């Protein structure tokens, strides 16, 4: 198999889901089973092709980068720059190949799961069409070799997420959530767009490789290292939006309004991981300052969302916050320089978190059916407080869910143990190298919190007794189409797929395939080199493992004490600390804060401006019109009264005097003689006096 073929195959992987989208959107209603089989099989084919690509890449071209580039727009010869064109294209390196498999695998499983979960839905075929469109956009992000296409697909996943969150758009909450997701993401996207602008303005290309080469060659944006840092941070803004990092994390919990398989695919495994992928892709251009910024964003995110997750009662909400928290881990990992570990956590998390969501989907599906059977339309099928004891009725779901939970808690033998441990070790090494000790402290604290809230779900939902014995009788295990994906994902949550050594991933194929790339930034602003980092990392490894195992153990123990053995009453704790509980329950009041500032501010300002526009600006225009009319009225009056008045006055006076003098024109000679006499006498006297 040669490189050409691999590239062609990857193009096929990219366009198969698009074909699925087009077929279903145009012919959905007329296709058998509304096209779900087409969508699923297209993704199945894409998965097969992706596996072939991965194997070929790793076995035949392990250290090469496959690239295909074409000229999309040619600006010809441009003054001051010379020939200018926009080249677009795709590239396949090891992380691309791995991501292709991750995306197509999860997408395929979600397609399969959805055929059962979504059956009977009002817009069943539309749903599958959008799933295809999402997969296409996501694969585009994975395959692109340049910032332009990255941004294009970045926004396209945003829109497919919008369409899928708002799948049940009749519900206001769903419509609101989809809108919120898109707009909040756009805020991050604009930051990324500005970052791309900086790069384009300085390098006149979008291609990753060329930009990194230029930076490595000493070409710095505007000849200033702070600009390079700014470019990195701005690009990372895209990740803050898409990967739901603080402070733009608020959209993800609301996104749970979408169908649960969508939450698994988009809002847990793939799309939200795109931000992490972006950081991994652009890692070479990140300066030390940018990386510290990234690490802190990740740490803050991980901490905030883990604390919120503890207080939530909606199973999907807990998982949503747990996702944000884990994404924070990945970002933290990349930020501290544990590149491979951060990306590794993305991959392992994709499997077990997709599993957790699909598992919760299976639970909700069962709860929903049972409630429906009872004619109960008030009880919330997603509320943990209404569940309990599901283990006996849904064994497959339970065991799978338990495996995922162990993985996310970082219990040995699971994939999560391998990846999380590497990140924590990395954070410890980072703390030692830079003195930023807060990062590892938060890292370990969050590990404990994670174990606690995850076991809280397991205990509340699956163990103990069910809330309502009558309902319990109507609960059933989900159909095969739903349980098969659960089992597959549970298998993938074991260590063996990634490394044969259950206590360390660094010897496995994954760490061999995904190596931290050389940094391109000048030495003065570069983070600790890979070698230096590795050295310290090696020392921290055992400490990290011990620490992480103990905090995870503590978390699990605490969850059992509180929710299973009920030695500590969660209610009492909540009551004892009302402000803390309310603070966590209300998600640190971020929504309220943004609602009162950004949203209300914008809407209020827009109203003020609209008023200003219609009253002041248009007022001036209308005022000018009225003033003109006033002047014309006045000049009309002036014309009719003064000018025409003067004319009429002359005529009147002439008439008046005519009338007056007519009186003396009597026609009688005697009168005239009398006038003459009087006149002569008057003149005579005048002259005499003079």
């Amino acid at each position, binding site marked *: 198999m040669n490189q050409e073929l691999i590239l062609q195959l990857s193009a096929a992987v990219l366009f198969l889901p698009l074909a699925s989208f087009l077929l279903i959107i145009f012919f959905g209603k007329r296709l058998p089973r509304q096209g779900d089989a087409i969508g699923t099989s297209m993704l199945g084919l894409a998965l097969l092709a992706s596996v072939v690509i991965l194997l070929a890449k790793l076995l035949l071209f392990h250290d090469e980068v496959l690239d295909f580039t074409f000229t999309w*727009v040619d600006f010809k010869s441009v003054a001051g720059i010379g020939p200018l064109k926009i080249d677009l294209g795709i590239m396949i390196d090891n992380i691309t190949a791995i991501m292709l498999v991750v995306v197509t695998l999860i997408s395929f499983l979600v397609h399969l799961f959805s055929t059962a979960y979504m059956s009977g839905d009002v817009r069943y075929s539309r749903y599958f069409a959008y799933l295809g469109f999402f997969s296409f956009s996501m694969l585009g992000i994975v395959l692109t070799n340049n910032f332009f296409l990255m941004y*294009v697909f970045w926004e396209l996943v945003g829109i497919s997420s919008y369409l899928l969150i*708002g799948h049940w758009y*009749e519900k206001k909450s769903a419509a*609101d959530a989809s809108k919120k997701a*898109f707009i909040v993401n756009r805020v991050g*996207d604009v930051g990324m767009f500005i970052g791309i602008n900086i790069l384009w303005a300085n390098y006149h290309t979008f291609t990753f490789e060329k930009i990194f080469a230029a930076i490595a060659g000493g070409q710095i944006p505007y000849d200033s290292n702070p600009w390079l840092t700014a470019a990195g941070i701005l690009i990372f803004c895209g990740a803050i939006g898409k990967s739901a990092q603080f402070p733009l994390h608020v959209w993800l919990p609301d996104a749970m309004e979408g169908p649960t398989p969508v939450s698994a695919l988009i809002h847990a495994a793939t799309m939200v991981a795109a931000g992490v992928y972006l950081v991994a892709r652009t890692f070479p251009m990140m300066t030390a300052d940018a990386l510290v910024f990234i690490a802190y964003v990740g740490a803050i995110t991980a901490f905030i969302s883990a604390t919120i997750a503890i207080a939530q009662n909606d199973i999907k909400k807990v998982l949503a916050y747990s996702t944000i928290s884990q994404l924070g881990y990945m970002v933290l990992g990349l930020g501290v320089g544990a590149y491979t570990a951060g990306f590794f956590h993305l991959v392992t998390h994709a499997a077990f978190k997709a599993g957790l969501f699909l598992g919760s989907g299976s639970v909700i599906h069962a709860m929903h059916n049972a409630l429906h059977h009872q004619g109960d339309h008030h009880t919330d099928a997603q509320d943990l407080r209404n569940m309990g004891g599901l283990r006996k009725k849904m064994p497959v779901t339970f065991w799978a869910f338990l495996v995922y939970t162990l993985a996310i808690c970082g219990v040995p033998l699971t994939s999560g143990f391998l990846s999380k441990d590497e990140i924590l070790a990395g954070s410890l090494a980072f703390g030692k190298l830079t003195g930023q000790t807060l990062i590892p402290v938060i890292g370990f604290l969050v590990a404990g919190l994670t174990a606690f809230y995850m076991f809280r779900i397991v205990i509340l939902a699956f163990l103990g007794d069910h809330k309502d014995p009558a309902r319990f009788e109507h609960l059933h295990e989900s159909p095969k189409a739903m349980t098969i994906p659960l089992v597959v994902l549970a298998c993938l949550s074991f260590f063996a797929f990634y490394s044969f050594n259950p206590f360390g991933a660094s010897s496995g194929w994954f760490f061999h395939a995904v190596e931290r790339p050389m940094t391109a930034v000048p030495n003065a602003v570069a983070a600790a080199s890979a070698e230096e980092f590795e050295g310290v990392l090696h020392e921290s490894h055992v400490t990290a493992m011990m620490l992480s195992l103990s905090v995870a153990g503590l978390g699990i123990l605490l969850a059992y004490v509180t929710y299973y053995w009920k030695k500590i009453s969660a209610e009492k704790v909540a009551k004892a600390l009302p402000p803390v509980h309310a603070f966590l329950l209300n998600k640190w009041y971020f929504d309220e804060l943004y609602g009162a500032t950004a949203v209300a501010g914008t809407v209020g300002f827009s109203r003020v*401006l609209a008023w200003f526009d219609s009253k002041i600006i248009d007022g001036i225009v209308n005022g000018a019109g009225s003033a003109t009319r006033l002047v014309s009225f006045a000049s009309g009056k002036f014309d009719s009264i003064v000018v025409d008045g003067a004319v009429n006055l002359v005529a009147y006076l002439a008439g008046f005097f005519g009338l007056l003098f007519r009186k003396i024109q009597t026609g009688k000679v005697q009168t005239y003689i009398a006038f003459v006499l009087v006149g002569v006498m008057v003149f005579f006297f005048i002259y005499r006096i003079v």
Partner: protein
Amino acid sequence: MSFTILNVGILTWMTFLPIVGMVVVLLLPKTNKGAMRWTALAVTVFQVVLAGLIYANFNRGMTGINSAETMQFKELFSWIDIKSVAWFGRIHIDYFVGIDGISAPMVLLTALISFVAVIASWNIEKAVKGYFALFLLLDTGMMGVFVALDFFLFYVFWEVMLLPMYFLIGVWGGPRREYAAIKFFIYTLFGSVLMLLALLALYFSVTVVDPATGEKLHTFNMLAMMNPANFEPGSILSGLNTYWRYVAYIALFIGFAIKVPLFPFHTWLPDAHVEAPTAISVILAGVLLKMGTYGLMRVAFPIFPDAAMYYLYPLAFIGFINIVYGALCAMAQKDFKKLIAYSSISHMGIVILGMTAMNTQGMMGAVFQMFNHGTITAMLFLIVGVIYDRSHTRGLDDFGGLMNQMPKYSAIMVIAFFAALGLPGLSGFISEAFSFLGAFQTFRWLAVASTLGIILTAAYMLWTLQRVFLGTLPDKWKELPDINGRELVALVPLAIIVIILGIYPAPMLNMMNASANYLVDFVRGGGGLTLLGK
């Protein structure tokens, strides 16, 4: 390059065919409404075919802008030649038309939008004869503006277009149509007067040698005005960077700015749009607004490159205000049509931002944005028209849940809305992105501030979409029929263009590339100063 049909140039066909159509419409018996509609349709279809010919035969390597040699499809005849007039001397005005990479996309757009507008006018029942006669006259005026290379001719077409627009809004419009029509007319006329003054100042400053007689003649030839060597020494506009050149530039600028419309000259637009019938809104937003930016870019910039460079930053700043102010005002509207009108103001700001960047990406982004805004906003107005025809209201809060009631309509709507909010894969994104990429190179912080518009646009567009199409359907709209065949014929071609150009914009960008590069060079180079030195 010339291209003739029956010995008449293709651009003359393009421009005056509607006049022929108008005469036919006027001669038809009053009762035969169908024939009038079909006449108008035939004319515009023919224009579209001609536009196709222009597209196919357009030489992508020729620059145009200021050289008659590289203008394409040009026609040059002596039009008015009066030997001796008191004070003026000999008056010589040419019929001079031709297109380059800046005007060609506008000609294509005009043909396309006119065709779409005829289809959207199909349901006009009031005084059909008058309507289509005026419509076709308007068509001539629009086309003329984009092909004229003689300033006098340009001015004539500019004014010709005013009159039919006035009646089309004032007679066939909504409840406040008279107010809106008068406002539109007087506002534009105000700008025209300033333009006329600048035009006369240019006329008396510029001379060329008549090749036939060898005498020096004042001229209205726009291309001659772009060469500083043609300005008589000592005339009012001679030299570069003089006080009067700045004044003349600002006079031209205001004339064009009113048309764009730029803040603070924009308030006629929402009123005119709200009152105008659907098809006229489509024309207004689709073509008329572009005349303003076209005039600035294609006329004012190259004639006064010195002033253009001098006022570049203030102009860019106005572009920024348009973007953000327009978007914020749009967000506060409760009337669907008014919202789209304000969104136009915002989107035209991007054109200004792109062209003031004065580099290739920005300039091409601006021209492309003019084209894309034409197609996308035309779609948006058609979309408003469709529900207004059915429900007789445009209140955003009167609707909800139309997505389920009118699925085909909603599908088209989704494309138009997403194109308007700049979604990649649709044409609006590319032109916006290019404009920003260009602007960022020239005005870093202004471009960054303008990106606020990207977020605001997404917000008001999605909010509108939610209010009208999502949620639950009010009972009173349970009977609303879905979009019909005629409306689809108007919308679908636009949607296809929006998608194709969104994925592969090269066909359109290639047309404008040479001219845009040259224009940037020309204006940046201190306006021919460097060219003159060569």
